C-alpha cells in the first residue's frame, strides 16, 4: 500500500545545532503537511505544502516539497529546547485530504 517513510526515527542534538527530518512517499502526493507533537501533547499543524518544489519558512523552520512531489523535508536552524517533540509528515493523494498518510515521525531531543 501507499507509504510515507520518515527518517531519522530519533535525533539528539545540542542546543544551537541544526536538525533535519526527511519524508519520502512511494507515490506522488497532492500535498504534504507537517505536524509537531510535544511529549504528552497532541499533534499541532505547522504547515501545508502544495506546489512542486515549494519552499516555505516559519522563523527558524524551513519546509521543502520535492519537484516530483514525493519527498519533503523540515529543517530547523539553531535548535532550541522548545523545539523538543516529535515531528510528523502526512501526505494526501489528489482530491482526498480526508485520508492522510502519516510518516512514523522523528523524535527530536535537544540538550541544553
Amino acid at each position, binding site marked *: 500500500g501507499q507509504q510515507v517513510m520518515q527518517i531519522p526515527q530519533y535525533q539528539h542534538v545540542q542546543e544551537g545545532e541544526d536538525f533535519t527530518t526527511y519524508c519520502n512517499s512511494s507515490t506522488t502526493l497532492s*500535498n504534504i*503537511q507537517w505536524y509537531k507533537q510535544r511529549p504528552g*501533547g*497532541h499533534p499541532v*499543524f505547522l*504547515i501545508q505544502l502544495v506546489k512542486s518544489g515549494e519552499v516555505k519558512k516559519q522563523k527558524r523552520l524551513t519546509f521543502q516539497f520535492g519537484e516530483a512531489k514525493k519527498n519533503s523535508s523540515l529543517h530547523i536552524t539553531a535548535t532550541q529546547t522548545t523545539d523538543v517533540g516529535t515531528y*510528523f509528515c502526512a501526505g494526501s493523494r489528489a482530491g482526498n*485530504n*480526508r485520508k492522510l498518510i502519516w510518516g512514523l515521525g522523528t*523524535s527530536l531531543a535537544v540538550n541544553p
Partner: protein
Amino acid sequence: DAMVIQNPRYQVTQFGKPVTLSCSQTLNHNVMYWYQQKSSQAPKLLFHYYDKDFNNEADTPDNFQSRRPNTSFCFLDIRSPGLGDAAMYLCATSRDSYSGGYTFGSGTRLTVV
C-alpha cells in the same frame, strides 16, 4: 477561541465495559476524525465524518463505533474494550476534503484495567 475539545482528558475503564469518548468543535468544520495513537507511533485513523457521511477505515475493528449527532459533536464508542485498546484517542477536524491542516483536540488517554 475556536477549538476542538475532548472529554474526558483521562478515562479508566474496565475490561469489556462500554465506554464513550466525546469531542466537540467550535470551528464549524465539515470533517471530523477519530484517531488512535499508541506510544511512539503515528496517529492511526479509525473513521471520519464528512458532514453526516460516515467513513470507516477497513481495518477499524467492529468494536469501535461513532456517532455525529450534529456539526459540533462527535462520539467514539468502544463497545467492549480490551487491553489492546489502551491508547490516546485524538479527535481532529478539517474544513473540507481538499486542503488545509487538521486541528486536533488534546486527546483522551484511555486505560483499560
